[in-house]
């Protein structure tokens, strides 16, 4: 069977890869958006923290014999706590300065973290075995769907929607949105804003680490796995605009799909298509598809 001269197996296969990439774009840009909302900094360390998530899962498995499912729960917590320490010790000193200093600091941290891991583990990936429960797959008739990939898409949709629900629909999220608008006023109401900032940063980092654990069985564990990815995620963020949580989720998945389609129809452009879309969006709607200029 063929569609537009492309075998359906290949078409749906690439679409699946696109959806998987989209899951990671969504999780990572969501974390960036949550952090940016409250801290007003772009977390350049995000890619390194995603990588740390994958390595943490690998360490848990090889050093402590803790498997995938526990790693999925423990890793975001561990990397998130490291993130909170970084926020308290370093980022907290920069809030009164130009926001660009936050970008420079987190860029430096990313260089340090990625450099240290690369010195220790080189640049060739380390395989991480699929969890046994999710080995194998289903034949859907038009394509073969590996169970693990279905799980990644499902889990990231659930986590993204849960994050959206927490921020937009709960009391905690209301505090968060209020602090984004006017931190002084929220502080005056007796809410500990500095602690909220720390926890928010930790949460954003935990999302990156969660994505890292999920990526480990697919992409292998590699010290530089987040280095180039984060630049693509920045473009995703510019396209979506950071004004809305749902915006970053939708943009992430949509761009993953578009990238997958490009691989089928014009593979030469698959690396650059997201950047080209960014350029077009900047020409038409500079604030981003879901953003508000501020």
């Amino acid at each position, binding site marked *: 069977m063929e569609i537009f001269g492309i075998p359906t197996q290949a078409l749906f296969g690439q679409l699946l890869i696109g959806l998987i990439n989209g899951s990671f774009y969504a999780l990572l840009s969501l974390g960036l958006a949550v952090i940016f909302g409250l801290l007003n900094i772009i977390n350049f360390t995000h890619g390194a923290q995603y990588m740390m998530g994958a390595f943490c899962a690998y360490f848990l498995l090889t050093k402590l014999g803790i498997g995938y499912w526990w790693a999925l729960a423990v890793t975001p917590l561990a990397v998130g706590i490291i993130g909170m320490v970084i926020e308290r010790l370093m980022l907290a000193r920069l809030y009164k300065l130009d926001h660009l200093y936050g970008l420079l600091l987190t860029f430096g941290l990313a*260089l340090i973290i990625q450099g240290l891991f690369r010195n220790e583990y080189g640049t060739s990936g380390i395989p991480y075995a699929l969890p046994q429960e999710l080995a194998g797959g289903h034949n859907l008739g038009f394509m073969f769907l590996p169970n693990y990939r279905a799980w990644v898409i499902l889990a990231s949709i659930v986590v993204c929607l849960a994050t959206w629900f927490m921020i937009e629909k709960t009391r905690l999220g209301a505090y968060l949105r209020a602090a984004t608008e006017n931190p002084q006023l929220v502080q005056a109401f007796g809410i500990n804003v500095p602690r909220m900032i720390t926890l928010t940063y930790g949460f954003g980092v935990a999302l990156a680490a969660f994505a890292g654990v999920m990526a480990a069985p697919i992409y292998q564990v590699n010290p530089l796995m987040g280095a180039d990815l984060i630049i693509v995620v920045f473009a995703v963020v510019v396209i979506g605009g950071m004004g809305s949580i749902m915006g970053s989720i939708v943009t992430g998945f949509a761009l993953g799909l578009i990238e997958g389609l490009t691989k089928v129809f014009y593979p030469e452009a698959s*690396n650059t298509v997201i950047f080209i879309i960014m350029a077009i969006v900047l020409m038409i709607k500079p604030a981003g598809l879901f953003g508000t200029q501020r």
Partner: protein
Amino acid sequence: MSAVHELAPRAGGFAHQRIAAAVMIAFFALAPLVAYPVFLMKVMCFALFACAFNLLIGYGGLLSFGHAMFLGTAGYASAHAAKAWGFPPEFAILFGTACSALLGFVTGLLAIRRQGIYFAMITLALAQMVYFFYLQAPFTGGEDGIQAVPRGKVFGLLDLNNVWGMYMLVFAVFVGGFLLIHRAVHSPFGQVLKAIRENEARALSLGYDVNRYKLLAYVLSATLAGLAGATKVLVFELASLTDVHWTMSGEVVLMVLLGGLGTVFGPVVGALIIISMENYLAQIGSWVTVVQGVIFVICVLTFRRGVIGELGRLIGKPL
């Protein structure tokens, strides 16, 4: 950036800045007597690159995280012109620089639509797109780059295969570029640029076409970065992917941050320190990235004025 504002040089030349400029020029004129000339040429190329970057952040308040695309584009263009088309070096450099200027114009139109953090992210993303283009384009030689770029003779007279001929060219390009930036910053154009950085809305209300000035600064910065890249290619006879990679964009940010954002001489000193570090610490190999990261963190947390900024504060005059 707040630290930049206090230290940005005022209009008109200061006597001490002239003295400092004379010291710097004398340094690069005499240093090859004691130091390795190729090392000094590398420093001058990167110093010009850093000065071009500083023009944008120091006077325009725009942090570009994609300046490697201009360094690399000019490098590939001039290498291709010299090797495949047999251009003499002066035209190869001119052609490479013009290509970067054009790229600066196109990317500038997009990037100046947003400010601050977004500007940084957009320039980074655009530079990554340019990187992938060169990775796939057939004429760049992919991972190998363009090797054995012929140096030739400038105007048919100055033989660049002689190390001193090459040194004279790099020296002239560096000093010329430096003085051009100095001139631009102290011209009415530079004054308007500073006004925009301080208060964009006010400059707009005074009738200045803000976007046109920003674009002009961006293109000028791209052009000079390209000039540095084209010259560097002739020095090393090699154009490679290293020059367009995002790590190079980060490196130039580091040079300027360490030397002093918005200072006149900071980028030169920053380039000298970073290139020396890379040269003399070559045995630590892959640790260079870690060391660079540590310098970033220390600069941002405790040393935001940079070397020259602190020095200027000590003597009470902007340098």
